[in-house]
């Protein structure tokens, strides 16, 4: 089951660049939350702070607190452990090119030391089913490389891989921006399915997508969160002028 995320006074820097300024919000458990805003507004940085991925960049720095359930992921945990609780799906599908479909899905478990064949088989099947990919790949799980699938299938494979480690939160950084419309709608259906079991945070450039999949939407601009409210409210009656200008296409 998913957990809620409480973000308090989050600030982030890349070198001297203050990319996130005083972010405060509550992301509800078992719902989808969309983050929108023009390129470079800090929304990708924000999700990378939620699983401490920004730390892979040596010049990155963060202050403030992010609580997942009862745990402050910066004060009480280690980056590696946080990332096991928080799955991430990236903008471009990034399956491990040398691994089979099966090994791609099992990789999170295998690389963290799980070896039990039955558990692995079971997890791979469950995860691929959750990612709506099982029927398309079940016959060549171990024969084909993950890289041999189509772009849309690869992205669903990456979702299955993230689900296999049984996370509570799923971060998706523009998961459909590199995909065609059919694959995109499959991913959106999937988000709709998954949000009852996971807390989903999705970054998107596509406002219709945000409107379709998310209950809550946050609008980011220049490293600040301008507005955070129910998706319906954001798209029909935003309280901030800048939000309105952005969603009506006046800039961005």
């Amino acid at each position: 089951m998913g957990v809620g995320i409480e973000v308090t006074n989050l600030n982030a820097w890349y070198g001297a660049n203050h990319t996130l300024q005083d972010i405060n919000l509550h992301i509800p458990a078992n719902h989808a939350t969309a983050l929108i805003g023009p390129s470079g507004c800090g929304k990708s940085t924000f999700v990378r702070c939620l699983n401490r991925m920004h730390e892979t960049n040596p010049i990155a720095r963060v202050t403030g607190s992010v609580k997942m359930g009862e745990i402050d992921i910066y004060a009480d945990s280690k980056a590696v452990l946080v990332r096991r609780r928080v799955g991430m799906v990236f903008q471009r599908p990034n399956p491990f090119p040398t691994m089979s479909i099966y090994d791609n899905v099992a990789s999170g478990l295998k690389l963290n030391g799980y070896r039990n064949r039955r558990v692995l088989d079971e997890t791979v099947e469950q995860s691929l089913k959750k990612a709506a990919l099982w029927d398309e790949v079940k016959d060549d799980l171990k024969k084909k490389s993950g890289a041999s699938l189509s772009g849309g299938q690869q992205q669903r494979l990456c979702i299955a891989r993230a689900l296999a480690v049984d996370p509570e939160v799923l971060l998706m950084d523009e998961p459909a921006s590199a995909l065609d419309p059919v694959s995109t709608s499959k991913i959106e259906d999937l988000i709709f399915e998954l949000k009852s079991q996971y807390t989903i945070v999705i970054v998107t450039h596509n406002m219709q997508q945000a409107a379709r999949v998310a209950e809550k939407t946050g609008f980011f601009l220049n490293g600040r969160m301008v507005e955070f409210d129910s998706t319906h409210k954001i798209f029909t009656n935003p309280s901030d002028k800048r939000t309105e200008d952005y969603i009506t296409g006046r800039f961005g």
Partner: protein
Amino acid sequence: MNTGEMTFRSRLRGAADHLVTGLAIVATALVILPLVAIFVYLLYKGASSLNFAFFTQMPKPPGELGGGMANAIVGSAVLLGVGSLIGVPIGIGSGIFLAEYGRGTKLANAVRFTADVLNGVPSIVMGIAGYALVVVPLHRFSAFAGGVTLGIMMIPTITRTTEEMLLMVPNAVREAALGLGVPNWRSVLSITLRTASPGVITGCMLAFSRVAGETAPLIFTAFGNNFFSTTLKEPIEALPLQIWVYATGPYEDWHRLAWGGALVLIVLIVTAVSLVRWVTSRGVLKGAS
């Protein structure tokens, strides 16, 4: 634009296309030709002296016909085995350091510079270094000293190719692993290195083939041995050494054996490289890049 001009332009384009294709074919032929020539000439000169005895018998004393190079073949295998045991892990390890941990640090720049310089050091100098560093302290020429010297010679090539190949692995692949909560060291070994492994293996084979034919560094270290030996403590024979001795010797039968030895050396290198490629390419999946 009228049609006449179109035809002229498209003809010109066609001609340019043919010209470039032709040049590429000529260049390819020029690359392959020397290799084929060497191999054919070796076959022509050496094949006649290859028989069962060549692989199983020891060299005969001068004047006596026949005999083989069993000691040199086994000796080369021992030397290259020791060399690879030293060169491959250190080379790959320092390549990993350069690409994954030391990016942009002073130490990495120093290591990279050292590797490049080491790569350019003449092999005879490496032999003298091996003599000074291993033979003198241990008070003896030995297979160990020869293997160490060959191993050191393998390191720079392996280091630099490993680094290049790891840098070619897209960052997205690293992020995918880290995003799953995999510790960095595990991601480096099981994901990045594995993804780069075809290139890394090529680098190892390149280094292996280069030192397999080295003579100069062995003169000062492995020294050569007319008797059969497999112990690391004793001097040992090697194919290039024996070829050198026999080819420069005064006897017709020695020249014949030297050609045979040269052929065997080339075949052994080709076999070793193909074998490693075959073993490592087994189980490669459909569509894997």
